[in-house]
């Protein structure tokens, strides 16, 4: 197969190289390599932080006292909730504003109309950002603020905070 024309090995080599390069190209272009971890990491971090912040707000300052969350809901005090939650969620060890925004809804049950939502406070308007929710059960007792639509009885409501990074 070898003669003085000096073509075969070269052609073989070229053919081999082309075959490998084309295969590699096809393979790489078809395999979508997304780093499997990245997709939900930020969601997990945000949700853990939101849960933590709500849990900390639900701890009363004194024994047998009411927690910030209870007081904010019973008095329909959106400022109290906003400041407290924002401080817990936006502080870092080096700065005070991490750029997190949130919306808060309270879900309560009434005898007449079932489960209803009630808007407690808004830090910013939500459009289409990637957001997570954190929830907390809160036990509230009357007397409630007059603007609240809750039934006049001891009850347990669910606070749902929608949290996203700007």
């Amino acid at each position, binding site marked *: 197969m070898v003669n003085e024309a000096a073509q075969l090995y070269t052609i073989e080599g070229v053919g081999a190289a082309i075959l490998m390069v084309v295969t590699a190209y096809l393979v790489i272009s078809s*395999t979508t390599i997304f780093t499997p*971890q990245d997709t939900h*990491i930020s969601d997990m971090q945000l949700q853990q932080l939101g849960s933590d912040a709500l849990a900390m707000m639900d701890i009363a300052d004194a024994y047998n006292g009411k927690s910030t969350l209870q007081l904010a809901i019973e008095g329909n005090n959106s400022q109290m909730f906003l400041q407290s939650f924002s401080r817990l969620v936006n502080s870092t060890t080096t700065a005070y504003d991490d750029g997190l925004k949130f919306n808060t809804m309270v*879900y309560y049950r009434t005898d007449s109309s*079932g489960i209803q939502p009630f808007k407690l406070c808004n830090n910013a308007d939500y459009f289409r950002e990637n957001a997570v929710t954190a*929830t907390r059960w809160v*036990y509230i007792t009357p007397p409630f603020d007059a603007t609240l639509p809750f039934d006049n009885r001891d009850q347990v409501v669910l606070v749902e905070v929608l949290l996203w990074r700007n």
Partner: protein
Amino acid sequence: MMAFIISITIFFLALIVNESAIVGKTTSESVLEFPKADIQDLRNELLYLIEKNKINDPDILFDIQSISMSRKGAIVNYAYDGNRLLIHYNDGITEYNEVYIGT
């Protein structure tokens, strides 16, 4: 011929890589899916209700059950007989049962 063998090898490698990226469960998805905060929160709230002596209030039981089902899609049931607290939680992926003695 070497090139042929190598091409076949690359092809198989790509197959493995492709499948591994899809088949495995990512850690963060597992973390998001396990309702750690929900269960801890529920336990905390029920123990608090025992302290406030409201654990046997049927209105509150209905509150928790209906809100839990409508907002979280989870079934919650609990009972307290003076000594032991039984908790049942099932959100379709994780089921949690507890008997708490010693309040």
